[in-house]
């Protein structure tokens, strides 16, 4: 990293000196906003751990099910309750009570959960930012209307709303689960963005941009959204953890993704049924869930620091 930046210095120094004798040469390497953000993120060791764990989980979730195909749903009763064994590379976590390969199933479940988590958060972020930005920027009656809508959504017991939607529009369908979580969850993001926009609209730098003749789109995209993004990114990363937990809860209550499809929630349900025979089965999906949630939370913390340009980059 240092090497590549050092390479830029001579060029910088000559242009600086060429302009006039008054100039002292600025030897600070030129770094963009994103380079600085990445450096700040890298200084946050827990966040880096979170990122690594998340990267491993995502890679596993993408690679293993592609190789193993539909094996996650295959039952072979002869292998039922086979104990975990590291000696068996094909089934290191053994087989469950109906002879399904626990490892393959766990990775498939992880894939489902992450898919649900990321997709639901995408809906939350897109809807939340749009609604919040419009409310905060336009203000007045529009703001009032949108915020009352938020109040209505917030006043409904969210989990029952999700259960109801899933029950009505198709139990066991991941898409329905995602949309349900999204519809219920966008309110927090909308409120965050609106609050940021309300205060940003009055800041001097936004006023200065307006005085320069910048249009609404430029002011929103260039000046207000980047400043409003930090809390949203943090909320979104934490939202991934939330969504994964909600999906697991739904599946645990048999409203979410049902067998033979795999999800961390329905694996927990399954493990709970056979708790006395094979208690260890509850550990795998449980631990995976904890890993996902912790990794997302740590990343959220790191991102919050990284996206604040006033945080110093330590040398």
């Amino acid at each position, binding site marked *: 990293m240092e090497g590549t930046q050092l390479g830029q210095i001579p060029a910088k120094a000559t242009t600086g000196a060429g*302009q006039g004798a008054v100039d002292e040469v600025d030897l600070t390497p030129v770094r963009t*906003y994103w380079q600085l953000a990445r450096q700040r993120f890298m200084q946050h060791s827990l966040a880096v751990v979170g990122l690594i764990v998340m990267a491993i989980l995502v890679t596993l979730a993408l690679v293993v099910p592609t190789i193993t195909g539909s094996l996650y749903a295959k039952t072979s009763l002869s292998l039922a309750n086979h104990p975990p064994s590291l000696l068996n590379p094909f089934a290191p976590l053994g087989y469950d009570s109906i002879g399904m390969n626990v490892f393959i199933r766990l990775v498939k479940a992880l894939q489902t959960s992450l898919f649900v988590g990321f997709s639901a958060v995408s809906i939350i972020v897109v809807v939340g930012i749009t609604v919040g930005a419009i409310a905060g920027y336009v203000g007045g009656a529009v703001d*009032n209307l949108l915020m009352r809508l938020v109040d209505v959504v917030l006043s409904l017991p969210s989990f029952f709303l999700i259960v109801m939607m899933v029950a009505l529009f198709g139990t066991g369908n991941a898409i329905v689960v995602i949309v349900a979580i999204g519809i219920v969850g966008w309110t927090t993001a909308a409120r965050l963005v609106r609050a940021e926009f309300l205060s940003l609209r009055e800041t001097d*730098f936004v006023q*200065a*941009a307006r005085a*320069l*003749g*910048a249009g609404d789109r430029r002011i929103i995209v260039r000046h207000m959204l980047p400043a409003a993004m930090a809390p949203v990114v943090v909320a979104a990363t934490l939202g991934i953890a939330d969504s994964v937990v909600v999906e697991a809860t739904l599946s645990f209550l048999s409203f979410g993704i049902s067998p033979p499809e795999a999800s961390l929630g329905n694996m927990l349900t399954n493990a709970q049924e056979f708790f006395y025979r094979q208690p260890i089965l509850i550990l795998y999906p449980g631990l995976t869930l904890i890993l996902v949630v912790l990794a997302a939370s740590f990343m959220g913390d790191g991102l919050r620091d990284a996206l604040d340009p*006033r945080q110093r980059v330590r040398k």
Partner: protein
Amino acid sequence: MSGQTWADGAAIEPIEASASLVRANGGAGRVLLRAEHVVKHFPIRGGLLGVTTIGAVRAVDDVSFEVRRGETLGLVGESGCGKTTLGKVILRLIPATSGQVYVDDRPLFDLNATQLKEARRDLQVVFQDPYASLNPRMTVGEIVGEGPLVHGLTDKAKREELVRELLAKVGLNQSHIHRYPHEFSGGQRQRIGIARALALNPEFIVCDEPVSALDVSIQSQVLNLLDDLQQELGLTYLFIAHNLAVVEHISDRVGVMYLGKLVELADVDPLYAAPKHPYTVALLSAVPEPDPRRRKKRLVLKGDVPSPAAPPEGCRFNTRCWLREQLGNPERCETEEPVFRDVGAGHLVACHFSEEVTPQAIASAAERQLPVIGA
């Protein structure tokens, strides 16, 4: 002039061309900006849904004045008197409740979006807080170059050249172009803000307390910079401040505001030597005396500034006016709003009894207050 070099290349709208023509012909002394009966009321909302208007904060209430080309018009007043709001309203950064501002006889408040964007090239602003006025996520180059970019200078290399020129002009190191605002000191940041305002080659700059947030040692540097730039580029300033010494130093004419109204407007020397409004007298008597051996007689106003949501009837200053007390509380002050009138040589005052503001009257008012000050 730097701004011109690129503007000439890009398609320039007539307004810019005519404005610079006037400047080239030495149009000093002619009216550049005329504010007529500018009113800004902020509604106080209440009711169940918060949509019913239950009152208004009269931040700016019927203010009229002119700014002449090439001059610096100072605007002073206490905190909350509406100076900053007035500055933002005449730049159309916040919409006026009523009134009109004419820039070169064009009605600013009636311009459509395209015309307004063009007009903004001539009207710029430097804000008070050098920390809040620069976007922390943009480099100095992006900040200063934004105006030219918005107005069609899309060539990145040309823009950077212009920005470097501007940085040099405001006394900043050109090689700092890729740095972020938080890497600079307050004074340097204010210079960046000034460079941003200059980037569009404006005629008129509203300086909204540009030095209030700076160290005293830095204040004079920034003031001198503003002064030099005015000489060099023929700029016109509306200089808003609460520091009377600073305003005296930089202004050609000075307006005094109280509770959303302009109460006095005159050339700087007559105003400081012989103020005609009792409020200005009191304001000036609050300027600290640098010589500790000289005992200065001060006129201390009683009470607080009334709420701008419910200003007093008649003259707004009548609740605190020492002159009114001295004259035996004439009823006129409470019933009739004073006209902003010319009391000679363009000295405008909004007081029924400004002829009574004599050195003797001031001295005797201060005399009566002396025991209070000593206690």
